[in-house]
């Protein structure tokens, strides 16, 4: 595999991975805004 192709693949994975992290953070923030204390305790330990 050429160096150019390799770095292009790494870049794409980094972009997709970063988007998934941002998505997860937004989803978590959204859930937090409507979280119930009772559900939170039940879901935890």
């Amino acid at each position, binding site marked *: *595999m050429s160096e150019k192709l*390799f770095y292009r*693949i*790494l870049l794409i*994975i*980094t972009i*997709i*991975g970063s988007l*998934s*992290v941002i998505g*997860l*953070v937004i*989803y*978590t923030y959204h*859930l*937090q805004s*409507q*979280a*119930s*204390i*009772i*559900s*939170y*305790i*039940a*879901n*935890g*330990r």
Partner: protein
Amino acid sequence: MKLLKQIGEILSLILCFVAFDVTVYEAVTKRYINHTSEGMQAKSVELDKYLPFDDNSEIVRINSDLKLSGELPVIDGAAALYPVFSGFVNAVYPAESVHFDGENFTAESALQYTNTRGAYKSVVDGTADIIFCAKPSAEQLAYAEENQVELEFIPVGSEAFVFLVNADNPVDDLTLEQVMGIYAGEYTKWSEVGGDDTFIEPLQRNEGSGSQTAMLSLMNGKEMKKHPLGFIGRSIGFSFRYYVEGIVGNGGVKMLSLNGAYPDRENIQNRSYPIVSNFYAVYDKNNPNPNIQVFLDWILSDEGQEIVEKSGYVAVKSS
């Protein structure tokens, strides 16, 4: 060889992102997922489950000779008390006085529900005549004072203020001193209060909610603190007994005994459970509506107190 190394690096990068996302989801995101219905999430109580004048409603029904007419007091209150005051309305109000559009009570309805914060605002603003709530917060009292409204508080029932933990938490009992120490940040691990070696995450409610006001009152000015690593440990929260047991009914949590007394009706009535507080009918002292006193007298009668008892609370006037 070079190709294998490149593939290895690509897979490692993918694995790093996947591992990060899974860890965040398991440690944080998953805990916020609310398994209750949309109605509960939006309003803290399913309004249609406890509607008056509805055959499918779960409210307590009694036959009363009193039927209010004329200028009907507009009723509002806390989520935890909604089944009680909806039961009051069902017993003595005319059916045509309640208007529910499937999600909310409409403006002309004599029964309203805006929860504790909204209800205290409504009784001061004059859009509600009687509200059913726990004690007000300092801000709610200040709001009444600013608006020169003198609120009257009539105890109509009592309820245990409870502490809850995950059902798998090995701790079943705490002393009042330990609970206050946990919330003051003096105990940061469960092992310090008879549990396992995990951090304690003491949770609080929204400012102005009835239970948050009750907790602030219990702490009596002591600042509440949280260990920064608490979120990786086991949580503890607080609420009112019937809200946890009857309205939400989540089997994933358990209520703790305090000083050896479990918060059941018997221990609330004989006061061996140490934190029992009244809930009140609250109204503007200068409200001229003559039905307010008639309605309050009825609430404190055997009939009204029967609704309090059968709804799962403890009557102030035990028969």
